[in-house]
């Protein structure tokens, strides 16, 4: 599968590396040229030598998305540090480029939930943290009661 990841922070770069290791074709797009170094953390060879692609550009720029290969992408992951950017570029990937699988990282649970109801696949790390913390507190309360 060809996976395009926009936003190469801690999350984006880790997902990119994992997918590359699993044998997928991975292209990463980020505004900051320095983020290329983050892709190579823990790698024995360079990102390119391992078959990865890296493009510098903003996720809202059609030219950058096209240079990163959006036209042939099977999966599009929006993981920049901006919720609104992720929501908007995911819709562009879906509607304009017809990417079959589009996933947006959205930190704000309210926005994540509403856009999910509109048919956008969202992943909300904040929601995950809330659920885990609630479960941890309940478990501990259960142990103390019992």
């Amino acid at each position, binding site marked *: 599968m060809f996976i395009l990841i926009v936003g190469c922070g801690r999350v984006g770069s880790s997902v990119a590396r994992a997918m590359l290791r699993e044998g997928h074709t991975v292209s990463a797009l980020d505004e900051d040229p320095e983020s290329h170094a983050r892709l190579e953390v823990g790698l024995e060879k360079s990102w390119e030598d391992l078959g990865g692609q890296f493009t510098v550009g903003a996720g809202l720029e059609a030219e950058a998305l096209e240079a990163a290969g959006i036209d042939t992408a099977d999966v599009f992951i929006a993981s920049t540090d901006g919720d609104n950017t992720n929501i908007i570029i995911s819709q*562009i990937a879906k509607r304009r480029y017809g990417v079959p699988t589009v996933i947006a990282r959205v930190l704000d649970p309210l926005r994540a939930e*509403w856009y999910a109801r509109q048919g956008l696949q969202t992943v909300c790390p904040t929601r995950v943290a809330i659920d885990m913390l609630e479960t941890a507190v309940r478990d501990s309360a259960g142990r103390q009661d019992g």
Partner: protein
Amino acid sequence: MYIIVVGAGKVGWNLARELLEKDHEVTLIESDRRRYMTVEQELEHNVSYGDASELWVLERAGIQRADMVIAVTGDDEDNMLICQVAREKYLVDQIIARVNNPRNRQHFDLLGIKPSVSATDLILRLLEHEVPEYGLVHLLDLQEEQLEIIEMLLGKDSGVTGRRVGDLHMPEGSLLISVLRAGKGFVPTADTVLEEGDEVLAVLDPGKEDDLKALFGPEGDGGIASG
């Protein structure tokens, strides 16, 4: 009318002030604390502090009963998201979005965020008007109707001077609608011969400007097929 304006920069602040003077009810939302404090000194309770892309901030501002939402922040993604949520989640009748980077206009259109306003585009239009050698002037853009009307001045090196209108191979989706010559306008017929100094008006599908420019410009061959 109840109008929510998002972004208290120069545009948003002045807009809110004008709307208040016209007796509208206005809430201006600003996410930068210091900017909010400054604007609040003048507009008082008409300003609200918060990030308007957070749904609860919009709800606190009373978006459910808003007649209009105007997003004029300096960030195109924010403007798009706020307008999309306003219209699709809160069913606000009227939205207006500011486009900061004209290259993002296509995204606003894709997401159905209309009307959108770009200062750069407006100034470019003005420039086209003020600098005639630019060649082609946009007179009217009917975005919804997918048509525009443009004006072109025929220089002495234009490829179409001295040619019959009927002989021009106008690009598909374009039509010559009038000729202004010596201060007088008329509707050309197939037998009209174009002259240097003519201003021609054409109606066309968006995106055909370059074809027309090629036809009427200095390098133009009048669209006459050779051989």
